[in-house]
């Protein structure tokens, strides 16, 4: 009898980012302040990636950083801003400069586009966007959405095209080295987005033993079969939050926001916190262990 050797999908953050060629299409995980793949964004900037297309429902400081550094040239999304603070400053500037284009959908439309990609069908039906400029106006897609009459009821239904990006990038609390992912709290659109990707890179706060995952299989939200690579990346969403792990650091976020109102301010931030450090560990060192420890979630609260 042969014992199954456990598959080991672990690689480093630097290795993971090296796998993403310029021009790739990426599903970008996390939602709002929750679990953005911030460390991955930083490393994309450090490795000077170009011309990425990003698909996401809504993201905030993470995609603003990617826009500031001109890593991304196209977005298909529903929302961005820094909630509670204001409009994302770098994206505003890059749009005015004409180096970033956005195709607008609603959040449900984007989530369904990921679900459709994950389900292996070329479109999904939707009852939003009807009657609006989200349907009437498009930016760069040859076909953005189609309205059909339902063959069963005659009612109008929007079809939105499914998305199968080259890579899906998800930041999770826990994963084992085979790639079984557990996510506490809300999942946003990560369940569907992870399954839509041709390759899937999971960054996680911690890598846990497979037997732990297998003792509670109904807690697994992304099974290993979908996952290509696994990266251990503690505090990888800082200064945003991870449910049950840590809170956001609004002081840092506000500092970012204020500083990025000007191009010079953004360049300074980028140099100080991203390109001026060697890796994600050096970035956290710069933030300081005392500051991080204060942000840890305080049980029974998930923040």
């Amino acid at each position, binding site marked *: 009898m042969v014992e199954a050797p456990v598959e080991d999908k672990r690689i480093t953050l630097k290795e993971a980012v090296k796998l993403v060629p310029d021009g790739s299409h990426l599903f970008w995980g996390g939602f709002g*302040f929750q679990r953005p793949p911030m460390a991955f964004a930083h490393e994309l900037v450090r490795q000077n990636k170009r011309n990425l297309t990003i698909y996401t429902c809504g993201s905030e400081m993470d995609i603003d950083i990617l826009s500031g550094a001109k890593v991304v040239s196209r977005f298909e999304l529903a*929302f961005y801003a820094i909630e509670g603070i204001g*409009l994302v400053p770098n994206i505003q500037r890059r749009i005015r400069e004409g180096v970033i284009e956005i195709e607008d959908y609603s959040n449900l439309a984007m*989530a369904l586009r990921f679900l459709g990609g994950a389900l292996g069908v070329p479109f999904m039906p939707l009852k939003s966007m009807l*009657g*609006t400029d*989200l349907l009437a106006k498009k930016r760069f897609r040859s076909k953005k959405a189609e309205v059909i009459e339902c063959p069963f009821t005659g009612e109008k239904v929007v079809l939105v095209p499914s998305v199968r990006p080259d890579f899906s990038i998800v930041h999770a609390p826990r994963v084992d080295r085979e790639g079984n992912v557990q996510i506490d709290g809300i999942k*946003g659109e990560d369940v*569907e987005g992870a399954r839509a990707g041709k390759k899937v890179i999971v960054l996680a706060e911690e890598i846990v033993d497979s037997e732990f995952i297998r003792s509670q299989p109904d807690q697994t939200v992304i099974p290993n079969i979908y996952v290509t690579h696994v990266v251990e990346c503690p505090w990888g969403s800082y200064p945003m939050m991870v449910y049950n792990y840590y809170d956001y650091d609004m002081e840092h976020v506000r500092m970012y926001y204020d500083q990025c109102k000007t191009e010079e301010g953004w360049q300074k931030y980028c140099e100080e916190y991203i390109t001026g450090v060697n890796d994600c560990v050096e970035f956290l060192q710069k933030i300081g262990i005392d500051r991080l420890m204060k942000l840890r979630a305080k049980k029974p609260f998930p923040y």
Partner: protein
Amino acid sequence: MTKKYAEPEEFTTLELMAVCGSRQIKNGEVVFIGTGLPLIAAMLAKKTHAPRAKIVYEAGFIDSNAKDIALSIADSRLGYRASAAIGLIETLGLMLQGGHVDVGFVGAAQIDEYGNINTTYIGSFENPTVRLPGSGGGNDIVSSAKRFVVIMMHEKRKMVKKLDYLTSPGFLDGPGAREKAGLMGDGPSLVVTNLCQMDFDPDTKRIRLATAHPGVSVQQVLENSGFDLIVPKNVQTTELPTPEELTLLRAIDPSGIYIPRAK
């Protein structure tokens, strides 16, 4: 027992707006909420007349009972004593588009006289002067919630004849237009601003002054509106907050994140 209202000088306009929003929530209703004032309004409703209201946030928090103010609709604070924490397909798809949401709350950068909303571009689509946050779940909420409430500031450049971009459907171009477009929800029920409350004429589906806030004249509302507004003969004053509501409101947002203390 007669209701005792606070005096106008005892509350701020933002507090009045939160109370107005709160009163749009009936007990037992399923309420779809973004952050900001609607979040405060829903938390207040649960502590007053609508303890069984179920608050849903699109990021995945369902029947939330947060004790602390959240900055993001994906904020872990909203998970405290929630009955479920799932994701967007659940909230916007199964719950909202599935027909289970009674009332949605949204904001607007521009609104027109049919209650259509712009949250995407200011200026032209081709060369916008400002790129706003976009639809997010806004389009989905107003498409499928049984009714929806808009909370926004009352300025001439925001109350417009023609939107720069139609992100989220009100009554589109009038009676029957939502049905013809295939939309499921019944459309906007109320717009709450810092000057007044506006509803929609049932026949024409055009926006109509409902109540003016204390100290605000009809003239003042008209001067701050870029669209034509139906003005009924008798415009009543907005129902004022009760002292209890104000006390609860200040306990909900003690550090004044959404409702600064200073008047």
